[in-house]
């Protein structure tokens, strides 16, 4: 039945049209446009009409070109915007966040900014200062810049939709995975440098692979420009450059002079042997980097000590030897009539890294523009708009020195297996997908052995991504300082690999016949659905079986499994076994390919659900409650509440923000930020002899007998300033970590004293894995991962808000607090 409304609309249109005459004219472009030609019309009218028609014609044509892919990207963009911006200001600022925001705010207030390596690159401070200048300073506006870059990160795979890269489906899948990745979501709403650095690294990566596909100047400009940008974000960019450099360098050397690779490997081995020998002879350790505000003389003394140290000297000698040998070999092999570039790289087959490198070297103009953009940004930001020329030094050697120095400091004291136990709790798809793709690439390369894979663009892209993920993971696991936010740096390439494998799967399905796909739909319904339901059933059963009573074991209250779990514990896995049986039967009756597609799709869907569960709860519900390993340490929401109460009280008492508030050094982060609007705030080094201020914040650790005496007539409320996940009772027991500086933290599993050998470490892993045979342990691990049920209370760093007797009655009406005199 035709729609009456539509009919009326058509009638109406007809009616209007009868009042005018129409003519069509063919344009040179070949398309036909409808032009209104009234009987009498001025030239001006004609011009306006033509312009309008042209414009509307273009819009019309653009709308006609919209594809399913465009709509999917639009939905992804909308979801990214909502997920990154929604409720952005509700979580209290983390200690590090408050440092970043406070100095950005000070910068925006005209108090200047000087780069310090401790707080990484200057980009964050500049862009946040801009945000405060435009939108004002608040927790929300502090995070909008990172949220904005979070959206860019989600959308960047759009540039890799080509068949030479991730493919259309692969790019979409990657974007979706970034969108729902709990780690990416959480840290896209956390004002740190990591997302800024990640966007730069991704752009650099895109520029390289795009140039490899089609050598155009714009990619060189983008690569060099983004190089300057990434260096203004975070020192992890040095690792990214190392990864990119070693990958492309190795491929170039492989083409030009393969023996050089052997020379380099030999040089590294020789250095390791030399170092061992020197260590054995009793040569002292390499001098420690003076990372903490070094004076010029300290730096000179360090450098002279470093350069004269036998290990370093031997390293320099070996490296020089290798370089000279490579140059000598190159010189011998090159065509001397063609110069260095053409002579060495010119003979490389078209499409290889070496040939592209040669092409790029010839494009001096692009390098110049890129260098001007990147270099300009670097100089502008590191010198804080030319106000601190020393920033150029602190941003390069200073930053490297500081963070290499931090390697030995081991801030956070995280063990070598930190990322190994962190990642599987959140990033199921990234792990499964990247391992799957690595396997696929290996099989693919094996089946095409003897053929050049370097010019297979998609293989090249994925191989570089896999190398990026692996190297970043290894370097960050080796680094002394391991923090949860660093996970995103190896996670991004892992997500790209996972997205690629999903994309390849969908492409493969699309290539099958209509009939095959129709059968697949049936199989998905009749086998995939039961399989998925049986897995869900396993989860529900595990949840039920592991929800036993809390019992005191070894002096600690612990969750146990249910007493009424029938027969034995393994029976809860029965649905999963039935699910596997379903899949096996399908494989027998319907073939391996159908089974792979159906089971793979089901598993991906279930993992997505699990990631949404993990990410949503961590980000929007418990963002500042450290039940999650990824949250690690957070400012408690009580700080937010106290500040709101003081603001309210200040308005009531003074009519503005003039309330006098003192706060001690132990509480200055994040209070420097939260107290910024109190005009009578004061950071104090100790509690005054006879305090009179209405309100004083002091960390519990700073209150000794003397301070208690001075504050005797004050009342106080106490709450956690920061709180953290009970790591000693959770993941730190997984294995022995002999590399840690703090002895007692090396081994939380047994009473064996240090030192620990490799065998001890392996045995400790064995014990952890072996303990999983115990149903109680399985239950606890399950509840930790799926329900974030901790096996110990969270730890905290207490803060007290002291209230002067004159204000006590008024203020304590706002909350139910402790009173000092009651103690």
């Amino acid at each position: 039945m035709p729609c009456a409304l539509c009919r009326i609309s058509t009638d109406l249109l007809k009616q209007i049209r009868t009042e005018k005459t129409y003519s069509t004219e063919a344009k040179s472009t070949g398309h036909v446009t409808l032009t209104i030609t009234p009987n009498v019309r001025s030239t001006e009218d004609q011009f306006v009409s033509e312009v309008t028609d042209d414009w509307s014609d273009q819009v019309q044509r653009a709308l006609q070109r919209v594809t399913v892919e465009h709509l999917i990207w639009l939905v992804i963009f909308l979801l990214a915007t909502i997920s990154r911006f929604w409720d952005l200001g509700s979580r209290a600022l983390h200690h590090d966040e408050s440092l970043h925001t406070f100095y950005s705010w000070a910068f925006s207030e005209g108090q200047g900014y000087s780069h310090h390596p401790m707080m990484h690159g200057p980009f964050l401070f500049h862009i946040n200062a801009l945000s405060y200048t435009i939108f004002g300073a608040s927790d929300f506006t502090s995070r909008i810049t990172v949220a904005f870059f979070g959206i860019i990160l989600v959308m960047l795979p759009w540039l890799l939709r080509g068949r030479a890269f991730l493919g259309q489906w692969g790019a979409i899948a990657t974007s979706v995975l970034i969108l729902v990745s709990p780690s990416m979501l959480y840290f896209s709403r956390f004002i740190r440098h990591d997302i800024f650095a990640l966007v730069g690294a991704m752009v650099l990566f895109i520029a390289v692979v795009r140039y490899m596909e089609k050598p155009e100047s714009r990619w060189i400009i983008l690569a060099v420009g983004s190089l300057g940008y990434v260096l203004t974000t975070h020192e992890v960019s040095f690792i990214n450059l190392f990864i990119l450099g070693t990958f492309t360098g190795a491929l170039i050397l492989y083409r030009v002079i393969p023996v050089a690779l052997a020379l380099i490997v030999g040089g590294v081995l020789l250095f390791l042997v030399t170092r061992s020998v020197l260590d054995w002879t009793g040569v002292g350790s390499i001098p420690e980097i003076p990372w903490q505000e070094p004076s010029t003389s300290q730096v000179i003394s360090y450098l002279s000590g470093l350069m004269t140290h036998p290990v370093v000297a031997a390293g320099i000698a070996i490296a020089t030897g290798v370089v000279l040998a490579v140059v000598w070999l190159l010189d011998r092999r090159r065509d001397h009539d063609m110069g260095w570039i053409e002579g060495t790289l010119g003979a490389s087959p078209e499409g290889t890294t070496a040939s592209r490198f040669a092409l790029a070297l010839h494009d001096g103009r692009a390098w110049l523009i890129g260098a001007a953009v990147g270099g300009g940004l670097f100089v502008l930001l590191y010198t804080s708009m030319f106000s601190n020329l020393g920033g150029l030094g602190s941003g390069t050697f200073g930053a490297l020195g500081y963070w290499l120095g931090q390697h030995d400091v081991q801030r956070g004291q995280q063990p070598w297996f930190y990322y190994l136990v962190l990642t599987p709790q959140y990033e199921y798809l990234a792990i499964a997908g990247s391992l799957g793709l690595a396997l696929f690439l290996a099989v693919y390369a094996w089946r095409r052995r003897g053929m050049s894979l370097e010019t297979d663009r998609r293989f090249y892209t994925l191989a570089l991504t896999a190398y990026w993920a692996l190297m970043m993971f290894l370097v960050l696991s080796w680094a002394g300082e391991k923090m949860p936010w660093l996970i995103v740096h190896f996670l991004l390439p892992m997500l790209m690999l996972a997205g690629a494998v999903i994309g390849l799967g969908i492409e493969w399905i699309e290539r099958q016949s209509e009939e095959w796909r129709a059968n697949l739909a049936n199989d998905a319904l009749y086998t995939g659905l039961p399989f998925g339901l049986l897995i869900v059933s396993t989860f529900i059963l595990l949840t039920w079986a592991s929800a036993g009573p809390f019992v005191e074991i070894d002096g600690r209250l612990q969750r146990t499994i249910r007493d009424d779990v029938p027969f034995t514990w393994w029976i809860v896995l029965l649905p999963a076994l039935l699910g596997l049986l379903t899949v096996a039967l399908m494989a027998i009756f319907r073939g391996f390919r159908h089974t792979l597609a159906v089971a793979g799709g089901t598993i991906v869907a279930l993992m997505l659900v699990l990631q949404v569960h993990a990410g949503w709860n961590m980000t929007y519900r418990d963002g500042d409650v450290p039940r999650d390993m990824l949250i690690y340490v957070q400012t408690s929401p009580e700080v937010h509440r106290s500040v709101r109460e003081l603001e309210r009280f200040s308005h009531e008492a003074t009519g503005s923000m003039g309330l006098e508030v003192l706060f001690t050094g132990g509480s200055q982060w994040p209070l420097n930020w939260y107290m910024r609007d109190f005009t009578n705030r004061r950071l104090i080094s100790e509690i005054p002899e006879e305090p009179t201020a209405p309100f004083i914040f002091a960390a519990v650790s700073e209150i000794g007998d003397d301070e208690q005496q001075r504050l005797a007539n004050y009342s106080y409320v106490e709450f956690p300033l920061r709180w953290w996940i009970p790591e000693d009772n959770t993941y730190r027991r997984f294995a022995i970590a002999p590399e840690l500086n703090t002895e007692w933290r090396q081994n939380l599993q047994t009473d064996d004293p240090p030192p620990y050998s490799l065998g001890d470490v392996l045995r400790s892993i064995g014990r952890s894995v072996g303990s999983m045979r115990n149903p109680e342990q399985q239950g606890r691990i399950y509840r930790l991962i799926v329900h974030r049920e901790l096996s110990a209370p969270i730890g905290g760093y207490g803060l007290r808000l002291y209230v002067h007797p004159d204000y006590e009655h008024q203020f304590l009406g706002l909350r139910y607090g402790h009173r000092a005199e009651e103690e």
Partner: protein
Amino acid sequence: MQDTRSASADFTDESARSSTLDRRIDVSSLSVQSLLWVGVLVSALGVRLIGRTNWPLSPAESMIARDAYALVNGEDLSGLAASHPATVQITAIMFFLFGDSDYTARLAPLLASLGVIVVLYWMRHRIGTLPALSTAFIWAVSPVMTMSSMRIDGGMLLVLANLTILALVFSMSVEPGPGKPVMLGVMLSIGLTAHPLGWIFSTLVLVLAVLMVRDPEFGSSLPNVLIGFVVTFIIVTTHVLTRPYGIIDFFRESPSSLWTEHVQTIGSGWNLTLIAMTIEEPLALAMAATAIILVLLRVNWGSSTPPALIIACAAWLIPSLTFGFLLGGQGPALYAAALFPLALLGGVGMSMVVEATLASGFQWRRISVAILVGFLLIVAVVRLADVLTIGPLDDPPGWVITLLLLGLLILLPLFFIAVRLMRDLGLAVVPMTLLALALVLGLFSLRNSVLLPTTTQERSGVILVAGSSAPSVAQIERRIRTYSGDTTRYVQDVRDPTGGHGLVIVVDAMVSAPFAWYFRDFPNFLEVEDLGQFDPEFPPDVVIATRTSGEEFVQARDDYALVEYALVRQLPPSLQSTNVGAWLNPANWRDGIRFMLHRDTATAVEFERFALILREDHAESFWGSVPD
């Protein structure tokens, strides 16, 4: 030298075939109709998002939410999970994905409510685009449906299942296939397990739909229907095969619940269904009456709607309304299930009115003016009635001036314009007047829907919110939570790793709902049959009880203090029975109009109350002083 043959042909170019992603979607051809559908969907969503949690979860809702929470966390389930398994599971999915809160608890009915519009969109080829769109419009602004989409009682899920059953039966008769019968079975099972009323309403819609379609092939689809039904039923009642005894529990609990809540009290609340239909759904009622009258008078108005559709809708409406009047346990679930056919019939009627107006051959400008005048006229008449019913109060001159202004300056000119237009319009005057009426009633329904969540405006006669928990429940919960956080922040163990939930809360089983839900994360929350049951060595900090048991408790223990708070909103006594004769008495019309327009009742709304009892040391901090 390495082989430089490229492998790209096998990897990069494999996807050279065109992809689904490249399929064009001609956005430029989006019709007015598409925009109207989107508009209705967005409006429905907007209306349903306003103040969704202003009313805390009612005791009945909280029990479903508590069960869903228990399912997510592996705890034991109550009997309610057996009688409403589908509702509990869908709520549990929302909790698992988005965390447990009042808002997420009510997400499932919201999605089901939007699902109804999607099914109507799908049905447009069967019942006609305009009837489907009109039904969706009525649905979007309907207060009954809006309330039902804010309640986790399974009512909205039941309505969605019923409509889908109808759509599937219609569709199967035109485009048979194996998938639809299976889906029909699935929906039948969902309807049955969403709410005990599914036994009546889902069966009714299935039987009627089959009778209406009279598809001889339907019998051959029965095995597939049965497969879909049995498989879904087993999965849902056993909570995805994890509680095998769930099937037996369902057969015990669901009919028992149907009996005790609805059948046993048969005929007890017929007047409430009548009020819900006439007062809350005047748009659907007026348009449905129009459709029926047109069919009875055999007037066509050039409408393309087949009379058979109207008869079919009426055939569904009559038994549905009969059950709605007869069954007890009135509430949004029953209203929604019983009145949905009215919305459908109203949609059909409204589509006839719209079609007749558009087909009248008049230009848009005149049609718009006529509808606008009709609309203003109706509003002015209603306003005049309102002024008349309020009476002069203490300002007779002002009242008279208002009446004169309203009558002379607004009503009279509008009346003359209307007469003039009527003369011009000829036969089209009736549909145009009806359309204006629909517009007024639509706005009136929209207003009533938007005002449903209001808790600060006294609208004692809104029967749809009867049974809701009072806002004080959520306020007290927040205060106790804050108090507990401030006083027990450092009382931590693995059951409460963050600390702050250290208060010992004992609740009388008679009022455990909704408090068992609201204090679900307090490890020392204890539900008791007898308040004297707790361990004297471990005295409760907080006791929540009925008024009677609370007073007895405080009399026995002088170290506790008690304050009463509102718990559940009840019907005002004047609405608990309806005297139809009184409605016909002109002396009561004024009150009647006040009730219709403002939901004013003769008696104020009443609340069931609960006793909050605190130990003396807490009482002073909590209340500022210890109450007598």
